[in-house]
């Protein structure tokens, strides 16, 4: 009995010793644990990037767009109709209203560079084919681009547009009411013909007052382009209360 007790005691004393790992194993374990922590960190950073792209850029862009929109509304309110201020388009030329997209008004600015579009606006093309602005009164194509996701995601719901839906462009003096007549759900990003002054791909052959919306598709990628074409139905003068046309009521 006594011997057994001694044995047990000895074992208890010894037991911490085997727990101590040999040096080589310790270094390997350390390397594996650091690698594991780095991988977990990488995963978290990628997750944060998704949060950034799909949420934070919208917050920033909407804030900037709202500020620019307020400035334009103020300019419009303080400048005489068709006075010298009429050509001041630095902050934007007007607002796009698309009821089917359920996203309120979208500020329209010059250019489709990343810098412009990242402020949560729609840009009209100056390259590769220059857009014809409706305010000029000339026949041509008013071509626009905006983000599908992130940075305001102003054309996120472009797929909700159907033939016959109204697209209204508001300037200081006029409401330009367009009607969607053709949709191209998927095309190559090199297909610049969709921007032509007479976009024949939409089935028209004669010069007219057209509008073209472009964005990327499918959502969350930039593989293809989604194109919506509309044609001008009528131009309505803005009244003193800025009463919206019946399409927006």
């Amino acid at each position, binding site marked *: 009995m006594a011997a057994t007790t001694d044995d047990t005691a000895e074992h208890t004393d010894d037991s911490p010793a085997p727990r101590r790992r040999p040096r080589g194993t310790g270094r390997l374990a350390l390397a594996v644990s650091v690698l594991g922590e780095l991988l977990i960190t990488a995963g978290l950073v990628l997750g*944060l990037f998704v949060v950034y792209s799909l949420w934070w850029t919208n917050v920033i862009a909407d804030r900037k767009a709202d500020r620019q929109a307020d400035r334009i509304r103020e300019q419009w309110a303080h400048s005489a109709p068709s006075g010298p201020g009429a050509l001041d388009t630095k902050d934007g030329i007007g607002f796009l209203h698309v009821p089917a997209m359920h996203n309120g008004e979208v500020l329209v600015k010059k250019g489709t560079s990343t810098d412009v579009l990242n402020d949560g606006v729609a840009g009209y093309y100056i390259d590769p084919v220059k857009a014809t602005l409706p305010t000029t009164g000339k026949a041509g194509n008013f071509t626009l681009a905006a983000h*599908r996701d992130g940075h305001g995601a102003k054309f996120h719901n472009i797929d909700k547009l159907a033939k016959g839906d109204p697209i209204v462009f508001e300037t200081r003096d006029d409401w330009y009411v367009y009607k969607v007549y053709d949709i191209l759900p998927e095309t190559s990003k090199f297909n610049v013909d969709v921007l032509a002054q007479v976009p024949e791909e939409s089935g028209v052959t004669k010069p007219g007052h057209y509008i073209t919306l472009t964005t990327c598709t499918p959502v969350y990628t930039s593989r293809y382009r989604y194109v919506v074409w509309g044609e001008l139905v009528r131009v309505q003068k803005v009244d003193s209360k800025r009463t919206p046309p019946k399409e927006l009521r």
Partner: protein
Amino acid sequence: MYGWIWRHLPGNTWVKALISLVLVLAVVYVLFQYVFPWAEPLLPFNDVTVNNQ
């Protein structure tokens, strides 16, 4: 790695937790403010125009 950082933070557990939180927030701030805006144009998620390039 994180264990090493934790052991080298000063103070008791609460102070360490507080410092860790501040460090995490600082890292997130740097990512959102500098790293992600730099990385985003390099990734093919946000081209919306048709063009010749």
